[in-house]
C-alpha cells in the first residue's frame, strides 16, 4: 500500500511556524521530519512518523505554492487563493526575507550577479547554511535590489512599500542594497571582526549624509549612489595634512583641549599626524571607485588598528574624534567647514561603531 496522493487544504491556510522555519532553512522533507522527530513532537502529540511525514509534505507543498507570491509580497495580500489572516501574512513575509548573519557577511558588498551565485556552494560549506537557504537569501537580496534600483525616494521607504517588511528589516535591506551597489569590500580578513550590524549602521549614516538624497530628494537612486560631487570636493580636505602649519595648528588645538582628559594622551600626541593623515587621505581618495570600495579596509588600517594597538579605550577614541572634528572650525585658514562636517560627522559615527574587538 503506497500513498499516491495525500493532501489537506484548509479554508484558512494552515501555517506551521516550526515547519516554515525548517523549510526556510532549506531542509529536505526527510531531514525536516527527522528534525521534528528529534524535537519530541511525536511524544507530545502521540502521532506516528507517517503522520509527521504527511504533515511535513503538506506544509512544504503549501510553502512552495506560496513562494511565488512571497516574491512580490503585495501579491500575497491581494491574492484570493490562500485565505491567510493578516498577522500570518506578515509573519510569512518577514520570515521569508529574514537572513542569516553568517550568510550576509559573506555576500555583503559583493555584486549580486550570477558569478556570486555560483559561489554559494562555497558559502554554504563555509557557513553550514544549506545551499537552498543560501539561494533564497541571495535571491531575496537580488530581488530587492532589482526592484528598488533606479527608483525615486527614500530607499527604506521603497523597500518597505514593495516588500512589506518591518522597519527594522527594511533598514537592513537598505544597507545590503547600498553595499551591493557601491561594492564596499567587507570580506578582507581584517574586517572579519565586524558584524553585519556594524556595517548596516555605517550604511545608514552614509545614506543619510553622503548620498545624493542627502542634498536632493528628487533623483533616481538617490539613496544608493554616493554624491559624486561631494566625493570630488573631498580632495579639498587634503590641505589639512598637506599644509604643515595647518596640521601643526590642528594638532596643538586637539592636544590642548584633551590634555589630562585622555588616558592615552601621549600615544595620541605621538600618533596624531599619522591618524590625521590617514583620515584625510581616505577622504581624498574617494574620487576613485576602487578606493571607495576599500573604504572600510582603509578605515581599519589607518585608524582603528593603530588605536587598537595602543589600547585606546573607546571613550578616548570618542573624545579624540569629537575634538579632532571640532577643532577644524578654529583653523582660520581652512575654508571647507561644511564639507568637513559632512565628511567627518559620518566618519566619526562609523569609526566609533567599528572600534571594538
Amino acid at each position: 500500500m503506497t500513498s499516491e496522493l495525500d493532501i489537506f487544504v484548509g479554508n484558512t491556510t494552515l501555517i506551521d511556524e516550526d515547519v516554515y522555519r525548517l523549510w526556510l532553512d532549506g531542509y529536505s522533507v526527510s531531514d525536516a521530519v527527522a528534525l521534528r522527530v528529534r524535537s519530541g513532537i511525536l511524544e507530545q502529540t502521540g502521532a506516528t512518523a507517517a503522520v509527521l511525514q504527511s504533515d511535513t509534505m503538506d506544509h512544504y507543498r503549501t510553502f512552495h505554492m506560496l513562494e511565488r507570491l512571497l516574491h512580490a509580497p503585495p501579491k500575497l495580500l491581494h491574492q484570493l487563493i490562500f485565505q491567510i489572516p493578516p498577522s500570518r501574512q506578515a509573519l510569512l513575509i518577514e520570515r521569508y526575507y529574514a537572513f542569516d548573519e553568517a550568510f550576509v557577511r559573506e555576500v555583503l558588498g559583493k555584486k549580486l550577479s550570477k558569478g556570486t551565485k555560483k559561489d554559494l556552494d562555497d558559502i554554504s560549506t563555509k557557513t553550514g547554511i544549506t545551499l537552498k537557504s543560501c539561494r533564497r537569501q541571495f535571491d531575496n537580496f537580488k530581488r530587492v535590489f532589482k526592484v528598488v534600483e533606479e527608483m525615486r525616494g527614500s530607499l527604506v521607504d521603497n523597500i518597505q512599500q514593495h516588500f512589506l517588511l518591518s522597519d527594522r528589516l527594511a533598514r537592513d535591506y537598505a544597507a545590503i542594497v547600498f553595499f551591493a551597489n557601491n561594492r564596499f569590500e567587507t570580506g578582507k580578513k581584517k574586517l572579519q571582526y565586524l558584524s553585519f550590524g556594524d556595517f548596516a549602521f555605517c550604511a545608514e549614516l552614509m545614506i543619510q549624509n553622503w548620498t545624493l538624497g542627502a542634498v536632493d530628494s528628487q533623483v533616481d537612486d538617490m539613496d544608493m549612489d554616493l554624491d559624486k560631487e561631494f566625493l570630488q570636493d573631498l580632495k579639498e580636505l587634503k590641505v589639512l595634512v598637506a599644509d604643515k602649519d595647518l596640521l601643526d595648528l590642528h594638532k596643538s588645538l586637539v592636544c590642548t583641549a584633551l590634555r589630562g582628559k585622555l588616558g592615552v594622551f601621549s600615544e595620541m600626541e605621538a600618533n596624531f599626524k599619522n591618524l590625521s593623515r590617514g583620515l584625510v587621505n581616505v577622504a581624498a581618495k574617494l574620487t576613485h571607485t576602487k578606493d571607495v570600495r576599500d573604504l572600510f579596509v582603509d578605515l581599519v588600517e589607518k585608524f582603528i588598528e593603530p588605536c587598537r594597538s595602543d589600547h585606546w579605550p573607546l571613550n578616548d577614541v570618542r573624545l579624540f574624534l569629537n575634538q579632532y572634528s571640532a577643532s577644524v572650525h578654529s583653523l582660520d585658514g581652512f575654508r571647507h567647514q561644511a564639507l568637513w562636517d559632512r565628511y567627518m560627522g559620518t566618519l566619526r559615527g562609523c569609526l566609533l561603531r567599528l572600534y571594538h574587538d
Partner: protein
Amino acid sequence: MPGKLKVKIVAGRHLPVMDRASDLTDAFVEVKFGNTTFKTDVCLKSLNPQWNSEWFKFEVDDEDLQDEPLQITVLDHDTYSANDAIGKVYIDIDPLLYSEAATVISGWFPIYDTIHGIRGEINVVVKVDLFNDLNRFRQSSCGVKFFCTTSIPKCYRAVIIHGFVEELVVNEDPEYQWIDRIRTPRASNEARQRLISLMSGELQRKIGLKVLEMRGNAVVGYLQCFDLEGESGLVVRAIGTACTLDKLSSPAAFLPACNSPSKEMKESPLVHPPSHGCRSTHNSPIHTATGSRLTQNFSVSVPTLIYTGMGSGSAGKEGGPFKALLRQQTQSALEQREFPFFTLTAFPPGFLVHVGGVVSARSVKLLDRIHNPDEPETRDAWWAEIRQEIKSHAKALGCHAVVGYSESTSICEEVCILSASGTAAVLNPRFLQDGTVEGCLEQRLEENLPAGCGFCHIPYDELNMPFPAHLTHCYNCRKQKVPDVLFTTIDLPVDATVIGKGCLIQARLCRLKKKAQAEANATAISNLLPFMEYEVHTQLMNKLKLKGMNALFGLRIQISVGENMLMGLASATGVYLAALPTPGGIQIAGKTPNDGSYEQHISHMQKKINDTIAKNKELYEINPPEMSEEIIGSPIPEPRQRSRLLRSQSESSDEVAELDLSHGKKDAFVLEIDDTDAMEDVHSLLTDVPPPSGFYSCNTEIMPGINNWTSEIQMFTSVRVIRLSSLNLTNQALNKNFNDLCENLLKSLYFKLRSMIPCCLCHVNFTVSLPEDELIQVTVTAVAITFDKNQALQTAKTHAEKSLQRASTDNEELLQFPLELCSDSLPSHPFPPAKEHLESASSNSGIPAAQRATSVDYSSFADRCSSWIELIKLKAQTIRRGSIKTTVTVEKASPVGEGNFRNRSSPPCANSTVGVVKMTPLSFIPGAKITKYLGIINMFFIRETTSLREEGGVSGFLHAFIAEVFAMVRAHVAALGGNAVVSYIMKQCVFMENPNKNQAQCLINVSGDAVVFVRESELEVVSTQQPTANCQPACAGGEVTT
C-alpha cells in the same frame, strides 16, 4: 421581456504575461449571455487593466435568466493571430432573481482556465431588473428560494413543509462526443462546464416550478448531484423539500437576556448533513427482460415509515395541481403523497413525533445510452422504483414518512449502483398543511409524555412488529416502549436527552469481486451487496456497543463500486440516549471448548473488550444514573446473567430462554466469525484508536454533549489515494489497508489541527471511490470548531448530580444559540415541573403546548435484521467458530444532568479582516448569527494538466486545484455581499491521472448557501448572563495555525 441583465466590467489585476516580448498583456473582455455577446475595448500593455466599461445590457426571458450562466471571457488581443484566451468566469445570476437575497453582484472574481488554473482576477458588477410577469403558464420559477441547508434556515419560519421535490435532466457528455477528438482539451472542458452549468440552471428552474405548483416558496435541503455515466451520458438530478417559509422580521439583537430573538426558537437550529441509512433493501433480482438493463430487487426489510410530506410526481411532470392538493388535505394527506420524503435532517420542535429506524434501498443497473435527452424516463423510472421501495419499508415500520432522505450513485464503467436511504418517521401533520390534523396521529400525541424521549418510542405495533426487536419501557418516561438500539440518518433532535458525549463511528469494508462484463458484473455486484450491508451493519453495532452507546445519528452508508472490488463505508455519530436501555457488553464465546489455549485466548480477548468498553465510557462521560431498584454498582462490562443474550449460535436457544425482557424472538444482531475472520474482526474493533485528548469528532452538525462552542472554525478537505499492491489482494488485506487508510487519515487530521485543541471535528464526511483497479480514493470534508474546555469540565463534574435539569440543558446543548432558550421556552422540557413554563413559552412561539410536549414512541430497530440476514447467517455459520455474544445488562438510565446554564461561549473576537469568507459544512456559524441568505452556490469546475510533474505531481496538482475551488467559492460569496458559506459540501471530486503521459484531470462540484453573518459579540447588549470570565485564549478571530 421579463428581465434586463446589466453587466459592467471594471478592471483586472494580476493578469498573466501573454506577450513574452513585452512582458505585458493586451487584455479585453467578452461578456456573453445566451446568444448575445459584448466586448470591451482592448486595454493595451497592462497586467492591471482598467476597462471601466459601459453597462452591457441583455434583455432576456426570466427562463433564460434561471438557466443560463453569465459567461465572462478575458482574452489577449493579438493583431496578427487569433486572440488567446486568458480564462473565464461563470457567474450564476440566480441569487439576483429573488427579492430578499442579493441585489447586486460586485467584486473580484478569479479568472479561471481549465488548463492553467486561476490567472488573475477581474472586477465585475452585475445587476438584474426584473419586470413583474403575471403569466400563469410561465416556465420560469423566479423567486423560489433554494437552500442546501437541511433544516429550516435560521432567519425563516416554516409555515408549511410541503414535501419532496425531485427532478433530473440528462444530456450527452461533451467529453464523449465525436467532436471531442478534434478539439482541444480546453474547449472540451469548457463545453462540459458550460453544459453542466446550464443543466443545473434548468434543473433548478424545473424544481422551482414544482414548488410553485405546490404553493411553496422555497426548497430546503436541496441536493443536486451529477452522474458522469461516461458514454451513456450525463445526468444531473436533484432532490429537496418544498416549504413555505416566512421571513422572521425580528431584529434579533436586542433581547437582553438571550442573545437571539425568541422567534428563532421555532426553528430548529440544528441541521445535519444528509446521511444514509442502513436498514436496507437491495434491489437485486435480475430482470433480464429488457436485455441490457438489470433491475435488481433485493428486499431487505428496512424499517421505514413515511408519514407526511407531499411528494411530487416522480417523473417530474406536474407536481400536483392545487385542487388535487385540497382534496388530499381532507383525506389523510400524507398517505396520498407519492413520496412522503423529507431531505431535512433537523426539524422544528414538535415536527418529529417518532422515529422508526433507517430505511434504505439499493439497486444495480446497467447503463445504456440515453437516446432521447428530453425524455429521461429510464433514469426517472429507476429512481421511482427505489423510492417506492423506501416508502414500503417505511410503511412496514408503521411510519408515514421518511426524513433525512438522500440519494446517491456509484458508477464504474457501465454498472451503476443507485442508493437511497432515510429514516422512517411519524411526523406531526401540523406543519405539513395548514389546518389539517391527522386523526390517527392525534392519539399518539399524548400530552403528558415527556418530549425528551418521545421520538425514541416505537411507532409500530408491539404485538405485530415488522422484525424481531427487543423492546423495553422507555427509561425516561417509563410509559412507552423503546427499542434497545436506534439508528437514524437525521441529526440528534434538539430535545433528545443524551448522556455524555458522542463520537464518530465508522464501519469499513472491502470485498473483492471478479472482473466481469455487463450483466455478469451487475449480478455479481448485487449478490455481494446484501453481505456487505450486513457486515457493515454488524460492524457498526459492535463498535457502538464497544463505545457503550445505544444510538446512531447521521448514519450514512456508502457503497462504492470498482473494477474488481466493492467498498463500503458507513459513518455515524454514536450517542447514549437516556431513553434507551444501557447497551449490553460484547461477549466472546469460543466454539471449541476443549481447546485450553483457545479458551485462554478468548478470555483474554474478552478482557480486552471489557476494558475498552470501560475506557470508552469514561472517555465519553457515559455514566447513566442507576435506577433505585437496580442492584448497586453494576458496571456495564460485567456480563449479567439474567440478561445475557447469545446470538447467532444455534445452541444458544436455551440461553435465549433466560431473557426476561420482551424480546421473544432471536436477537438479530450477529457477529459472524470464522476462525481467522473472527480474530480479525475482533482485532479491528480494538484497533480503532480514540482521538487524542482534547479532540472529539462526529459526523452530525454538532457534537452531542458539547455546547460551549467558541468562534474559531476551520473547514478543510483532505484527499488521499492509495495504490494497493496487486500481490496481496485478499479481502483481509484489503480490509486492513482500507481501515489503515481511514485511521491514518483521521490521525493526520488530529495532528494538523492540534493547535485548535480543545476542539471537535464536526460533520466529518468521508467519501470513497475507486478510480482505477488498484486505487482507493478517500475524500474527507469537515470542520473543526473550538470549544471552551473549562465549561466542558464543569459540565462533566456536575454531570451526575443534577438530574432534573438535565433534559433542559440538553436541549440547550444542541442549540447553537443556547441562550435563546431561556427566554423563549424550553420547548422540550421533559419534566412536569417545566410544564407551565413550557406552556407559557410555547404560547409565545405560537405552537400549542400539546404538540410540543408530544412524544410518540418509535423505535428503531435499525439493527434488527430481517429474513435475508437470517439467510446469510445460515451460510456464514457453516464456517463460524467463535462468536460474540451481546450481553444486555439491565440498567436503567434516567436523565442525568448538568444543570448549569451554559454560558455563551463566543468570545468577543471580532472577525477583523475584511474580505474573510468563512466556509463550513454546518448550517450555522458558532458565536454568530446569520442575518441573511444570499442564495445558493453551486459550482462545477474541471481542471486538467499536461504537465503533471511540473505542477508538483498529483498532490501538487490537486492541492492547488482544491485551493482554487475554495478561492472561487469565496470570491462569489464576497461578490454577493456575503461573508460565509454554510452547509457547504463537496459533492464530487473525481480525479483521474495518467502519470505516463504526465497528465491528470479532476472534476469538482461544490455547493452551499451564501450568507451574511454577524458576530454575536457585535450584536449583544452586554447581558448579565455573560460572565465574560470565559474569554478563551483560543479565540483568535478565526485565525488558525498549526
